[in-house]
């Protein structure tokens, strides 16, 4: 039983990271219905920004994460303006291909600039270990979990209680109507990209600290997993993305922990498909039938 | 002879009862009007009859070769195959396809060659395709769109799009034709033409027609019988004369001119 709870803790740490990436996916999707394939690469760049900040500016954990979030936010907005904005009225699949192009560009560009090899992420946290009731919890895990929860609460506050959050919800429901109500739709979309990318940046730094290894292709798989997490919880729904992220993290940990590490991805996909077949709009999503 | 019988039909959406215990009995080749204020449940009733929604309770029966067959809850395509065809309130043409293709698609259930015959271009393919083309053009002639057969549906003016929807519905060889607000957005002249067209179709195809319409002059001039819906309930039915003077109808339409 202890092993099971230990796996749960492992899964929560991994799930926190998926959840942070999934939030960005879900926000962008909610507002312009774009599967932003490049989001996983923003997360990767977040890790590199953190790496550079710690290595060359010799900053600590919190400054590193803030620098990385700020740079990722800027990057997200720049990408949106250059690559996605011209396609706002094109088919969604054209926008998707653009996102794939951006993803290739960021990956190959990072390989070119930073080199292809794996970098060891500098350790800025003491790795103290706490033993609680036979369970091993590291200081890093606590940092990851707490940072994730705090960021999510801030996000929830922004979306639900602030003016910009209201604008985001309005644009996501009906961007034309929002424009008529005097909302600056372009600015709102940019802010959504900024927030989503900042969260991915934070996830990048956290993952760097947790696993102490970063490389230019590290964003591909977590990007897909996070998208699955978002779909799983009901894409466009913020609590859904959090829930999906945690669920997938825990699921992977438990499957690998019990000897199925080769099938951990397969199990995630199977659960996803089953959920979608039973509840086509995701776990927390509402089934909206098209009006005839 | 009864062709469609609706008994105690009810549909709830959450707490809202959109269609409440509606009973109808429609004879062959009747021309029926379905009226009521906005939100009365007319389109929901259409959607129930054509299989888009499943009834919460109640029965819908269709006369199929002399037998009354329950069709409530059947899939829309199955209902269409049994002889019910419809148009949509908010026009649902295949916008990026040609006018001719719109009609051809609707003839699908009557095409007698399979997928493989299509892929390998067996003789049946050529024979059937020729037939389909001829019939589709004939239908377009009836709605006076044959000269526009190669245009994209989305490029037609509004009135013509409505007529194309009617032609498309006819292409399924229906026994009952449901028209959801066919005159919406038309000017008086177009409405007049439409009235003539509906009469022509009824005579030519021996088809039963049920239409939802807000244009009372149209309804009163062509419908043989009228059902009135309000808050999901059928509050009156009868001839146009009877409906005009029915106290509950006047109440429901208070402020609206009949």
């Amino acid at each position, binding site marked *: 039983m202890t*092993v099971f709870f*230990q*796996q749960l803790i*492992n*899964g929560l*740490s*991994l799930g926190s990271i998926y959840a942070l990436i999934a939030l960005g996916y879900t926000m962008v999707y909610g507002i312009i219905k774009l599967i932003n394939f490049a989001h996983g690469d923003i997360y990767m760049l977040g890790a590199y920004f953190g790496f550079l900040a710690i290595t060359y500016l010799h900053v600590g954990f919190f400054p590193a994460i803030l620098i990385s979030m700020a740079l990722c936010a800027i990057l997200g907005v720049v990408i949106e303006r250059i690559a996605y904005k011209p396609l706002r009225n094109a088919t969604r699949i054209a926008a998707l291909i653009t996102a794939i192009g951006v993803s290739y560009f960021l990956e*190959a560009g990072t*390989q070119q600039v930073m*080199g*292809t*090899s*794996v*970098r*060891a992420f500098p*350790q800025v946290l003491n*790795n103290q*270990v706490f033993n609680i009731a036979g369970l*091993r919890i*590291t200081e890093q895990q606590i940092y990851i979990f707490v940072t994730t929860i705090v960021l999510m609460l801030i996000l929830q506050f922004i979306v639900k209680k602030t003016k910009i959050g209201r604008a985001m919800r309005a644009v996501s429901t009906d961007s034309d109507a929002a424009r008529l109500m005097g909302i600056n739709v372009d600015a709102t979309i940019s802010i959504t990209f900024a927030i989503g990318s900042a969260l991915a940046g934070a996830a990048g730094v956290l*993952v760097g600290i947790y*696993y*102490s*290894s970063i*490389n230019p*292709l*590290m964003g591909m*798989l977590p990007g897909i997993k996070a998208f699955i997490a978002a779909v799983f919880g009901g894409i466009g729904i913020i609590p859904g993305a959090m829930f999906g992220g945690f669920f997938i993290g825990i699921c*992977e*940990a*438990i499957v*690998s*922990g*019990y*000897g199925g*590490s*080769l099938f951990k991805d397969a199990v995630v996909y199977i659960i996803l498909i089953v959920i979608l077949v039973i509840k086509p709009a995701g776990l927390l999503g509402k089934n909206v039938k098209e009006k005839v | 002879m009864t062709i469609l019988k609706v008994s105690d039909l009810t549909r709830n959406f959450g707490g809202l009862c959109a269609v409440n215990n509606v009973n109808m009995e429609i004879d062959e080749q009747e021309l029926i009007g379905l009226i009521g204020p906005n939100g009365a449940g007319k389109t929901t009733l259409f959607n129930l009859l054509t299989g888009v929604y499943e009834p919460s309770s109640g029965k819908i029966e269709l006369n199929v070769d002399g037998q009354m067959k329950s069709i409530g809850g059947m899939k829309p395509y199955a209902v269409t195959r049994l002889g019910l065809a419809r148009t949509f309130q908010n026009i649902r043409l295949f916008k990026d396809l040609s006018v001719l293709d719109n009609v051809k698609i609707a003839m699908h259930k009557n095409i007698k060659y399979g997928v493989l015959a299509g892929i390998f271009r067996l003789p049946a393919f050529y024979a059937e395709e020729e037939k389909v083309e001829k019939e589709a053009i004939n239908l377009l002639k009836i709605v006076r769109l044959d000269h526009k057969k190669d245009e994209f549906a989305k490029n037609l003016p509004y009135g013509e799009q409505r007529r194309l929807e009617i032609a498309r519905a006819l292409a399924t060889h229906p026994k009952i034709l449901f028209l959801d607000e066919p005159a919406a957005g038309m000017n008086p002249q177009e409405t007049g033409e439409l009235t003539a067209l509906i009469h022509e179709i009824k005579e030519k195809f021996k088809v039963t027609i049920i239409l939802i319409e807000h244009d009372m002059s149209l309804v009163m001039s062509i419908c043989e019988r009228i059902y009135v819906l309000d808050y999901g309930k059928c509050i009156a039915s009868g001839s146009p004369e009877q409906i005009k003077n029915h106290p509950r109808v006047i109440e429901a339409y208070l402020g609206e001119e009949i």
Partner: protein
Amino acid sequence: MDSKNFFKLLTAGALSLTALAGCSNDGGGTTDEKVSIGLHYELKGDAADYGNAELRGSQLAIKLANENEDYQFTYEGIEYDNGSSENEAITISQRLISDGVVGVIGPSTSAPSAATYPILNDAQTIVVSPSATANNQTLVDPDDPNSDVYEYVYRVCFEDSYQGAAMAQFAVDTLGVQKVAVYGSVSSDYAKGLNTAFTEQLEKLGGQVVANESYQDGDTDFSAVLTSLASQEFDALYIPGYYNEAGLIIQQARELGIDCPIIGPDGFDANTLVELAGADNLNDVYFTTAYTTVDASEKLQAFIDAYTEEYGEAPAMFAALAFDATNLLIEAIEKAGTTDKATVNETIANMEFSGVTGDFTFDETHTPNKSVLVVELVDGVQETAVSVTPE
């Protein structure tokens, strides 16, 4: 912007890139007779880490050769990126053939290699592979040990089965291990080949694999599997795989309190392993390799110094292997005194080569006869090296 302008833009872009490429291909040459060597590596994509390390090794070898006044030819490396894709590897091989190379160094990994060999061999172009370690990789049909060897294909690395068996021998004989947990990669045939050979030899010597877990290359979270391993009993943990994952596994394993010896293949041999695992965690860690910095030979030390000076970092095993592979080809060309491919090929087949990863000749499968060294790490530093031969 209309389409006309767009195409103008595209053309302009393409032209400027062509110009750029023209510049970069212009290496400094001194003599007229330039000998082209194809450098066919994974510079982007999943295996880019290994490909880039090898490219540097090859470039250094060519640079040093051109500085060597005893050599009669000037060498030029023609680089291509196969993007870690087998399909691309084929066209690149054909490009190299039409570029008129004498020989090709690369690719780094087995799958693109398998796609390349038939083409290069048919064109009688020599291939010296730095790191295609798969069992029977140099044979026409790798599933049939009796099939013909590709006449023009050589490799300078061990075969997987050889060093896997050597590690099992060392574990039982020297470490006195009986029960071993294996946590290996399934993404590469390298790791799978090692795993099979290790297990076979271990069982032959009376040992036992008590747990067999797997990961995929690119994974970063091993805590789940290691947590369940930590609750089992074993004398050693064998990690057949490369340093990128092995480094993290060692770090996470030590943190979870797995303090038995950790053993692995030459895939451990890179500075990245130390960076990822942390020097403190690298005690009681052993790996098989062909070359070691312990009591480094003069030749090896010279290579390490030259490499460090050139690139500002210590070479990984991949760079050393590529350095040897490239030097092997260059030396053969010098020795044959011609760029005639058949003659050079004959020279290689009978050559006694002395490189930074050991002195060797080729056996009948064009695989080197090198002795396996087992290196021990103490605080992340190579401490001792012993030679092992599997029985």
